[in-house]
């Protein structure tokens, strides 16, 4: 697979208004506010759906969030025998439809990032739906709303492109898909190294 950026298919107008989740991994301070807030989203039913990891726990305090990246061609949905995982018109890969999910857990095995969680008792998969009740109206998802460090941001295509212009030094630190991801995603990621390309003020 090759790196594809489909930004060009968007008109200038959508680039100004269409917002995406953008992750600035270098900013993470490990507070896990995103996890706490996840449960607050319309009906996430007290279960958070994302992850924050200590990168090298015996060495330093670096942490990174790992959320559903909302793949353009999601392996979870591809592997679902019941077609329970739907893709919203905004590109969000939704949580399993409760009436369709048959509890086979194929999605948890298929997801290259290990995102879907499974509730054995309820025989039901649940995952990040990008707070679809918020994002469908362009209200930022809970995680990006509360993130105190701006690791998670809700940005327009244009704003993301600006960031890419500043920080993408063509050394694979700027990641929107390959080689650090397994395919194109709706969520954009900037690997640690945000400050590369930043010119010091003095």
């Amino acid at each position: 697979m090759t790196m594809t950026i489909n930004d060009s298919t968007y008109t200038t107008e959508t680039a100004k208004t269409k917002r995406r989740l953008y992750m600035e991994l270098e900013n993470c301070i490990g507070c896990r506010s995103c996890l706490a807030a996840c449960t607050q989203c319309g009906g996430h039913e007290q279960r958070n759906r994302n992850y924050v990891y200590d990168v090298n726990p015996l060495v330093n305090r670096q942490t990174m969030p790992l959320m559903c990246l909302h793949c353009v061609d999601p392996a979870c949905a591809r592997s679902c025998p019941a077609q329970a995982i739907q893709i919203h018109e905004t590109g969000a890969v939704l949580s399993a439809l409760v009436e369709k999910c048959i509890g086979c857990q194929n999605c948890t095995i298929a997801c290259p990032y290990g995102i879907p969680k499974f509730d054995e008792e309820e025989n039901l998969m649940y995952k990040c739906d990008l707070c679809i009740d918020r994002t469908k109206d362009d209200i930022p998802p809970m995680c990006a709303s509360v993130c105190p460090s701006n690791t998670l941001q809700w940005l327009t295509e244009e704003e993301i492109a600006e960031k890419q212009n500043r920080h993408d030094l063509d050394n694979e630190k700027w990641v929107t898909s390959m080689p650090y991801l397994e395919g194109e995603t709706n969520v954009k990621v900037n690997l640690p190294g945000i400050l590369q390309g930043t010119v010091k003020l003095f």
Partner: protein
Amino acid sequence: MEQVTSKQPINGSNKKHQNNINNAFASHYAKSMFIAISGLAILTFIGTRMFTHVDLNLYGYMVGTIVFLGGFFYRFIAWGERPPTKIMIKKGIKLLFRKSTPKTSVDHLATYKFIWNRGIYRWTQHVMIGWGCLLACAVTFPLVFSWMYFTMEENGMYTIVLFGMDLMVVPADGAIAFLSYNALNISAIMVIIGVCMALYRRLKNMQARAEQQLFYDFLPLYLLLFISITGLLLTVINVFLHGKGHYVMSLIHQFSVIVTLIYLPFGKLAHIPFRPLSVFARNYREHYGEKEMKECKVCGTEFVSTEQSNDVINVLGTNNIEFNMNDGFNLAELCLPCRRKYRIARFSGSPTHQVPVKEANQNAKG
């Protein structure tokens, strides 16, 4: 509605006659349709004692059912052709005779234990709608195809006839008789209660609100409500209005049922006929889990059956999705925490997945 009975014979015959009969049909769809309609015709032939006992008032339902079957097979085949579904159905049928199948079936299809675990309210609502509908179908369809009918003897006894055989004779004013002629009323009330609960939850609950769509989530509820209310009104008309307006109301009721039947395979209610797959899925996980478990290529934890890991890899392969890493494993061979940590490692350049420290709590309750 009558989900269990209609599907398994179809799949069974599909498999048995695959080689010789397959070539006679233009498609799976045509074949299935042919078999289903033939089956229906034979059953009706037997039930009506060679078409001598047909209730012509109900012919609208018959047409509706046949249209429904067309839609259903169309949906089912389109669905069953998807690689992951195909695997699950194929292996599910093979494993159908596991010892645990009856228990799993009862849990999944009759008592809805997994819904109980999602909440008593939702369970009650689902039992009301589910069993209300099942009961209604169990009465309606045999009547429509004249598999079952009632006769009233002079002696005040009441005979229930099934496929031309006298099933039982009961006193006309007894409890069983009462339940039989009120079966549809009871089922209507159950469905109305269940639907009202569902509507209330949809209006109030945030999860439901977040993802609901008018046509997908509300239409089926309104349809069920429509059927139940018009059905109850029929009783009201008969009992209190001495049959005034019965004909119009029965047409409306018939119309509501036909619309629902046609809609059923395409909307949310489609989960009814497809639900038995969850029994297949459970058998699949149990059987292959007992056979051989996959050890995580990083930490060695057994996290899924080898079969499922391979199946998923293959399924994704048919979609041109491959997750073979340079580190010598496929991502489906890592347990979930390791897979996540591996990604962090890819992001950070530090070997997060190899640090032998318990991961921070990722499931803290809000």
